């Protein structure tokens, strides 16, 4: 037997004494956990909780396992949203290899999102997230070969979703993709999404009025629209060149992408041909700022939301103190006086329903909602109290998954 682990391996050290010599199907270890509502898989997949994290174990042919291990590492290096691969266990006598990935904390599968009434029609937001992920992969030269709802986990992102790739078994990395490769990938996605929704429909968890074929076709339309926006060439008239370029860049930024290079090629009397090369950068300008200022790890929309709250709080501080307050001071004070008190006050039994940042985002939403209703600003602490009492308990327990055992009820 042979373990290959990505350093730092400490987190994985606790996994070493799992019963690797037995078929995964037959494992009987107290650390095994069930993940409800997970996506479909061709292989045996089981989950292990160890040291506060959950790991996904997938049994598959050694050659494929090593390949997937390399690809997942590469995806992370490129800053593309994918699960973190921990290692691969090969040379198990007479058995296939096992690929070990870290289960994405506080993530949800499409099955749990559709099954939970809280998101009555998650379709739109799911597709947006999925299409954005696929476009990012394609820009980076990744052909997925198996884009589907099952092969993605979703994290909540201030009411929207962020999609993470969890299965790279069939993926291939190229310097860039041909039209044929992209087209093939998209038509596979169309087929898989339709199949998955037909399946939900047969299981009775697809909201009525959602037509699998329409949704699948819509995915293709969204993909084409986004790809086109990010990569299309256009002819610009000399008079409005500056304005049009700025507008195009703003649009690309607002879609969450960065522009790497802008190229203008003279196209004779009609003007210039604008070529835009969109960069595959880690999504998350705001994410990085929030991380630097507060140490909080958040999704992009969440980060934008929190930064707005920090900005508002800074204005408040400046009024109270009667003078300018540096950004770093404002951020730290906000963390200690606004954010942390809310998170610390979450009743123990409800702690794992949502990730902390999403929960804080919901408290802000709730504050806005209560303030609207009462015609005055109710303040964050009052909003939090009301939210813990009336909203959080309604978030289904199995909406997102973490590696922690459920808290005892308080």
């Amino acid at each position, binding site marked *: 037997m042979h373990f290959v682990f990505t350093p730092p391996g400490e987190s994985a050290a606790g996994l070493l004494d799992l019963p690797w010599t037995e078929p995964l199907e037959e494992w009987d270890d107290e650390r095994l956990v069930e993940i409800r509502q997970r996506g*479909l898989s061709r292989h045996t997949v089981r989950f292990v909780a160890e040291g506060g994290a959950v790991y996904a174990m997938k049994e*598959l042919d050694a050659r494929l396992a090593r390949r997937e291990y390399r690809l997942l590492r590469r995806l992370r290096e490129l800053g593309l949203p994918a699960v973190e691969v921990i290692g691969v266990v090969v040379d198990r006598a007479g058995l296939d290899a096992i690929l070990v990935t870290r289960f994405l904390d506080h993530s949800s599968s499409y099955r749990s999102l559709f099954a939970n009434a809280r998101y009555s029609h998650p379709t739109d937001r799911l597709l947006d997230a999925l299409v954005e992920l696929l476009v990012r992969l394609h820009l980076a030269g990744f052909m997925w070969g198996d884009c589907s709802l099952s092969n993605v986990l979703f994290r909540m992102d201030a009411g929207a979703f962020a999609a993470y790739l969890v299965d790279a078994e*069939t993926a291939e990395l190229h310097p860039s993709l041909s039209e044929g*490769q992209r087209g*093939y990938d998209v*038509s596979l996605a169309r087929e898989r999404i339709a*199949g998955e929704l*037909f399946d939900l429909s047969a299981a009775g968890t697809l909201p009525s009025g959602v037509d699998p074929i329409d949704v699948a076709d819509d995915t293709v339309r969204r993909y084409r629209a986004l790809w086109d926006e990010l990569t299309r060439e256009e002819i610009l008239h000399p008079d409005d060149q500056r304005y049009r370029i700025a507008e195009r860049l703003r649009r690309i930024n607002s879609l969450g992408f960065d522009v790497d290079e802008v190229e203008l090629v003279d196209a004779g009397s009609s003007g210039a041909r604008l070529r835009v090369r969109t960069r595959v950068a880690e999504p998350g300008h705001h994410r990085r700022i929030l991380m630097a200022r507060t140490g909080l790890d958040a999704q992009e929309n969440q980060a934008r939301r929190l930064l707005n709250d920090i900005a508002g709080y800074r204005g408040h501080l400046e009024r109270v103190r009667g003078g300018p307050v540096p950004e770093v001071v404002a951020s730290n004070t906000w963390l200690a006086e606004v954010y942390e008190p809310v998170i610390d006050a979450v009743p123990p039994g409800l702690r794992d329903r949502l990730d902390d940042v999403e929960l804080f985002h919901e408290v802000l939403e709730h504050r806005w909602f209560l303030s609207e209703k009462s015609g005055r600003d109710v303040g964050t602490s009052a909003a939090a109290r009301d939210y813990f009492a009336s909203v959080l308990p309604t978030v289904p327990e199995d909406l997102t998954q973490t590696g922690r055992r459920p808290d005892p009820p308080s």
Partner: protein
Amino acid sequence: MAAITMKNIVKQYGDGFPAVNDVSLDVQDGEFMILVGPSGCGKSTLLRMIVGLEDITAGEMVIGDRVVNKVAPRERNLSMVFQNYALYPHLTVYENIAFPLRLAKTSNEEVQRRVNQTAELLELTEHLERKPANLSGGQRQRVAMGRAIVRQADAFLFDEPLSNLDAKLRGQMRTEISRLQRRLGVTTVYVTHDQTEAMTLGDRVAVLRRGVLQQVGSPRELYEEPVNLFVAGFIGSPSMNFLPASVDGSFLETPLGRFELRDERKIEAVGDRSVVLVGIRPEHFEDVSLVGEEKKARGSIVRAQVDVTEWLGNELYAYVPYEAPEDLAAQLRDLSRELDSDQLRTQAVVALDAASLISPGREAELWIDTTKVHIFDPATGDNLTRDEERVEQLGRMAEDSRAAQREAQRGPADDETGASVAES
């Protein structure tokens, strides 16, 4: 259905590396063609150019009577089988097969007709109302195949389809794919690095090396009449043994001993070369004590020191190390590496009758069937003794047996189902 014709196909990447170099290959209508070779030989790239995933740098790809160089993958009407198939747990087998048709908004009537035909072909009729969880592994794979068949594609393409299955299922599926392909008569291109798959499945096998097509022929032709060292070494397991030999008139002096080439055609082929490589398949050796007098006269006898033996029940493998001049030994090591073989030493592997009492560490008398040996030019690797007449004969045999097999598979009872699924 359609023939697939590749004319001088080249795939060159940005860095100038030719992944596929001037390949011309004709896959006949209904033929089962295997693309085989070690990793990096260009077999998958070639398949991807057929599918439309890779742009073609030069040459022409024709499917049916249409040049498809610029045609999008989904418009080529091909079916990649097993690639990322998924069975849906809440859908019945029927719906799992039907769903590509639903997606294409095919009428209910037509769906029913096609799914029923497909199920019959795959012997899934009585399982149509069941859920995938209640099926065996093999049945599930058949449902996945059903999804490919029901589309009525012009050709099936397989890219190492069995590599992610366990050994037992792999064997089952190999038989299943072969049976089904012959029954449907759909043009099929199948990529594999596994020479056992290549030999057992294909009507013809195309062997590639570093982007260049080496040889196309029936499995038997490749085995018996390889064009060069590479094909001779790649096809067959254990591999053909290559012994360096110096030529002395009609005699060959090999590390295992001296023997006579009693074949005018072969002697002539060697010409005035002083050094050659002699290729002998393991099974063309035998323990002398087990060879009858009449047969003995057809070959030659050598004495050799046996290093290790492996008794397998049905036969016995003996390993016979030998010395080779350094330059030839290095060349053989390179070849062995290229063939993905782990054999690092110069040793002959001989497969003897299981009744042999040869033991390791002793000298043994081995009979060689010299009528079966091939002689290769050490500089070019070309097979000097390939028998063109025999090649032609093998080609005709393969053609006849293909026709006969198809006739049998598509017996009159099948006309209703098999033929119409394939032909519409």
